[in-house]
């Protein structure tokens, strides 16, 4: 697959859809959580308002170059992740720029935003930012491990690293999904999924109680707006990857919307009913439960 200029507007369109979907869906999820608690909850368009409000802030401060670039890295990471992954299977225009690289690219590009964010937060000079980063990085080392193993077992199963081909291999019926052809890998991957969605019980990174929300402590105004945008996009992007790898991808936007929503609900539900882990607890958790499943996955495939 090669590049034509027409792909640029296509990609932008995809991006636009996903952004709005992300903003609405996160709001809906929060509303659901509120209803569970017997509250009316926020209006579904609240995210848009907050976004506008933050863009409209009048006075801003700046802690230095990396601080300034941090959110840029963050959002670029999210957008890039979307653009490097084909969104809709078989759609002529939602393939984005997936010709640039395969699954490996997607997996490692996830770290792009994290790194930039960490550096930006670091330069703000706030100890809480550094603490949050240290916690987050420490947790991700083991949280991503089952995912890596699952991906490996998947790649061996399908003998390819190209996402498109993996999705293609899952077409033609529910039971061609990896979920059924390679359940162990999916379970392992789900550990990583829940662990990296920044929701309880694994959200000690931005623990609003002990450390006022960690890395973004010093961020505000447009910086914060960019990060909010990313927080709308990035989970969707990750969910898309999981959907493509394990749940047969999506052949049209409706299927996309449903699958992503359901997948997104998994960590949400778990988060609503679980208290928070300390970092070393979650590390042990992943080593004790996630890792063995992952090992089984790569041994049995």
């Amino acid at each position: 697959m090669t590049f034509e200029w027409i792909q640029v507007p296509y990609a932008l369109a995809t991006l636009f859809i996903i952004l709005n979907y992300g903003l609405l869906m996160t709001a809906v999820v929060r509303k659901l959580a509120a209803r569970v608690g017997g509250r009316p909850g926020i209006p579904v368009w609240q995210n848009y308002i907050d976004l506008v409000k933050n863009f409209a802030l009048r006075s801003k401060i700046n802690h230095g170059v990396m601080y300034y670039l941090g959110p840029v890295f963050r959002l670029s990471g999210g957008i890039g992740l979307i653009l490097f992954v084909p969104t809709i299977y078989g759609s002529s225009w939602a393939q984005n720029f997936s010709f640039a690289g395969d699954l490996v690219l997607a997996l490692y590009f996830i770290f792009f935003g994290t790194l930039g964010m960490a550096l930006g937060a670091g330069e703000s000079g706030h100890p809480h930012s550094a603490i949050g980063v240290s916690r987050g990085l420490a947790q991700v080392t083991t949280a991503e491990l089952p995912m890596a193993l699952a991906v490996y077992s998947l790649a061996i199963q399908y003998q390819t690293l190209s996402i498109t081909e993996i999705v293609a291999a899952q077409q033609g019926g529910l039971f061609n999904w990896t979920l059924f052809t390679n359940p162990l890998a999916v379970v392992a991957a789900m550990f990583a999924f829940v662990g990296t969605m920044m929701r309880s019980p694994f959200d000690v990174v931005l623990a609003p109680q002990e450390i006022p929300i960690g890395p973004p402590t010093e961020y505000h105004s447009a910086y914060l707006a960019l990060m909010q945008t990313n927080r709308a996009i990035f989970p969707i992007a990750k969910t898309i990857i999981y959907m493509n790898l394990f749940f047969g991808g999506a052949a049209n936007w409706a299927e996309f919307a449903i699958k992503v929503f359901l997948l997104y609900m998994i960590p949400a539900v778990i988060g609503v009913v679980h208290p928070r882990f300390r970092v070393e607890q979650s590390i042990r958790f992943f080593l004790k439960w996630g890792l063995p499943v992952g090992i089984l996955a790569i041994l049995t495939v």
Partner: protein
Amino acid sequence: MVSPVLIIAIGLGTAFALGLLGSSRKTLQFGATLTALAAMSAISVIWLVALVTGAAQTAEIHTAGAVPPFAINLRVGIAEAALLATVTLTGLFAALSLRAQLLKLGRGGMAVLLVLIMAISGLVMTRDLFNVFVFIELIAIATAGLVLLSEDPRAVCAGFKFLVVGQIIAILLLVGIIFTYHANGSLNIDDIAATPVGVQGAALAMFLLLIALVIELKTFPANGWALDIYTSAHPGFSAVFSAATGSAALFIVDKVVAPAGAEWLPLLTGIGVLSFVASNVVALRQDNDRRLLGYSSVGQLGLVLAVIGQRDVLGEAYLYVAGGLILSHAVAKAGLFWMSAMVRGRNLDDWAAIRARAPMVLAFATFIAMLVGLPPFPGFYAKWDLAQALVAAGRLPVLALILLGVLIEAAYLFRWFGFAIKREAPEKGLSANMVDCGITFAAVIAGWALGWIWGAIPGQHNVLATLPMLAVLAFFALEPLPAKIKNVAAIGALLGWFTLVFGDYDPMRLIFAVVMIPGGAVILLASFTETGRRIGFYPSAMAMYAGLALLLEATTFFEFFAAWEIMTIGSYFLILRGKMSEPHALSYMLFSLGGAFALLAGFALASGGIQPFALNQLGTVGAELAPWVFVLLSIGFMTKTAAMGLHIWLPGAHAEAETDVSPMVSGILLKAGLFGLFLMLMELGRQSLWGVDLTVVLAWIGAISAFLGAVLSIFQEDAKRLLAYSSISQMGYALFGIALMNHLGWLLAMMFVINHYVYKSMLFLAVGGVYKRTHTKLMYQMGGLITLMPFTFVSVLVGIIAMSGVPPLSGFGGRWIFYNAIMDAGLRLPLILIFMAGPVGFLYLFRLIHTIFLGQLKDPHRQLKEAPVWLLVPQMIFVAFLIGFAVLPGMALQKVDGYIGSIFGDQPLVWSGRAIASEFGYWNPVAIMVVIAVIFVSVFLILIAKNHDAQKVKQFNIVFSAERPYRPETTHFAWNFFAPYRKALGFLEAPVVTSFWGGVTDGLNGTAEFTRRFYNGNGQSYAAHVLLFVVAVYLIAMGGVA
């Protein structure tokens, strides 16, 4: 041509003539002595030259006009001549070194010295047993005389002990001679062979002869009597005692045993090896320099004795090996004793005094290298041939013991050298004067000359004659120049060499060559920051680079091994230059030597004694040997790549080295090990031992190193240690890649060779620059340096992005190849560790950049300047390269890919334009770079549009729960950065390996401590030792013979 008898004649004559001179005219007497000695030396040297050049034949001199056995006859062959030269010259120099003493003592002393030298020469030449006895008596008496003549009370009692034991020896010898005469009516050595030794009496006779001569060698444990002499006598004399007497005694043993027949050899071997290992172990605990030298002499003599014991397998190489060892021992020991005459203090660390004089250090280094048997000295060649012969004859245990002994010897000698370089020098610790320096340097020159000669002997590869080594010698000559000029020269030399050679390398060698030679030049740019003359840096550095260059040039085992050793020595001296690096340099040296010996054994095993053996014939090794060769070689190479278990030398060595040395030893030196592994696997391929596939073992080791290296690295507070541990991890990746034994795995390893060189050198230089400014390596003491050191920050940033494998920089290429490589590899379990090592690596990298450059700036650092420009230049070059390499990986990899394809016969990667496709996935670096750049810029523009007017605030303008920060120190979160990680996985940093190696060394020292008790300084017990020794040996030996 003058008759060699004159040597004896002159000696005796002058000795008597001295008596005629009035006792008052000391100077005249001294002059006479010197002249006599000079004459003797002259004669022997003339003979040596004549014999070597073939101008003369081996001469038989019959005294009293009758033929043996009715008269004593002397012989002068090459060996004799060489020894004579050594002896007489030693005597001459000894006389010079002893001048003060001699002038004080007067003619008595001089006469005794003359007689001693004369006797030793006679011992060398004579072919008659009784004559041997006479000369030995003379030697004993003369020695005792010389020792007793000095008024040091300890010397007196030492001399007395010596006499006592000397008499025991004499008696044994005499009895032996009588028996021999009884057994075969002749005292002529050559006749002994004529009669069968099977006769009980003759066997006993021979035993007594040998044991007497062996004890004369002061073999362990029957040597307490002699050691006191080393300690107490004047070093000038000890030199004679160690060099001349010892060599002569060895020679006589050889003379006697030659006719006696092969069944005596095992006895000698046993005694020799025991003596060698044991006295080296004891020497470990000595703190008096002369006593240490004494033990070392005993050890060396033991070694040669063992070699004599191997004469049956050595064949015609026998003279070469034994001679090499004896001569290097004689020269080095004499030299060291003469140096110790100049050092005032008697403790090992008093030798720090010599640091003031660079030539002295050179001399010291030369002698130690000669003793340990490092190139380019004769001992090295001898060791190599010895190993070949031993393995060929299947005498591996002997080889193992000898190598062990050498390792221990290296341990205390290099520890001593470390003291000399690193400990603080005592006031006026050095009493240097023209004469002593003169004779010392005569020894140095003799050493190098011998090195040349031993190399030049046909059938050998002369290490010194190679261009790189000549360059090194040239840099010795350049030392007086200022550092900057030498730096230009060094860079020129490296680039010049590269232009000479790169034409005829295959792509893989070429990559290594580029990393090692021009790569070294780039790092040398950083050395322009150094001012002054920087004595000692350039020879060492160039020695290392010469080793690397020769390593790539090597075609035979020997060349490879020599290059390896040279590289090791050079890097050792480099590392030793660091401020706190004394212990680390030592452990580096020991591990390297251990690895080198593993290589030596492996090569010998592979070649089976055939010399020279080409590297590319490694594949032809027999199937039953191949696995063992594999094991030995990979141990050797993995010591260099610091694989887990053999890694403990690395962190200290790399962290404590100088700013511009760390990148050399980390970025470049480690690659030598990888190069070796490549060669080995290319030739040997997969091997399995007891059904275990050894490459799988390698893969596991690689994975474990990759993981544990990373984990250990995140717990470091010292920036350079952090980087050092990360090197272990990175080399682990490379090792894993190689061990995958498939095309992409090797490509991955090559990628790591390039990437690791670039970003590790870059990071070490950056951290070094920070260290230059902040004077600390502890990260938590820094912070907020980003605005003060922007360039350094940029290079660290690029470095860690590349290293962590995040797109778009070149590290990602490595990861991509890695995934494709593991797809068709059978290994799965080790992957778990590798997968985990990735994110863990991310941890320590972030810590590195955060705690140094981000966070809170500290009071004392507020006005720091950016790192020196010459440190930045190479960094910026690296940054540019990393980005270029990220966009166009093909420029370096495509050729290598093709080459590896020619090895494995497959071609998994398709290079179409800028895009790369494998059978599993695809990778388009340009597209990635462009997409990311476009997104990044557009988002950045949005932010600028909104926040261009943001108010720039200072470091304490942070929300602090409505309080304000107290001090930057209390606000910077840096120390123990990953505390939760330590809570969860801290158990992984338990120092298991370190404690293991610590246990080994403690064990050795314990043994030494125990053994030295045995030397209680009491003459009677020493005599008892001797007798017990004789009896014990008798029981063992005759049990074997009869």
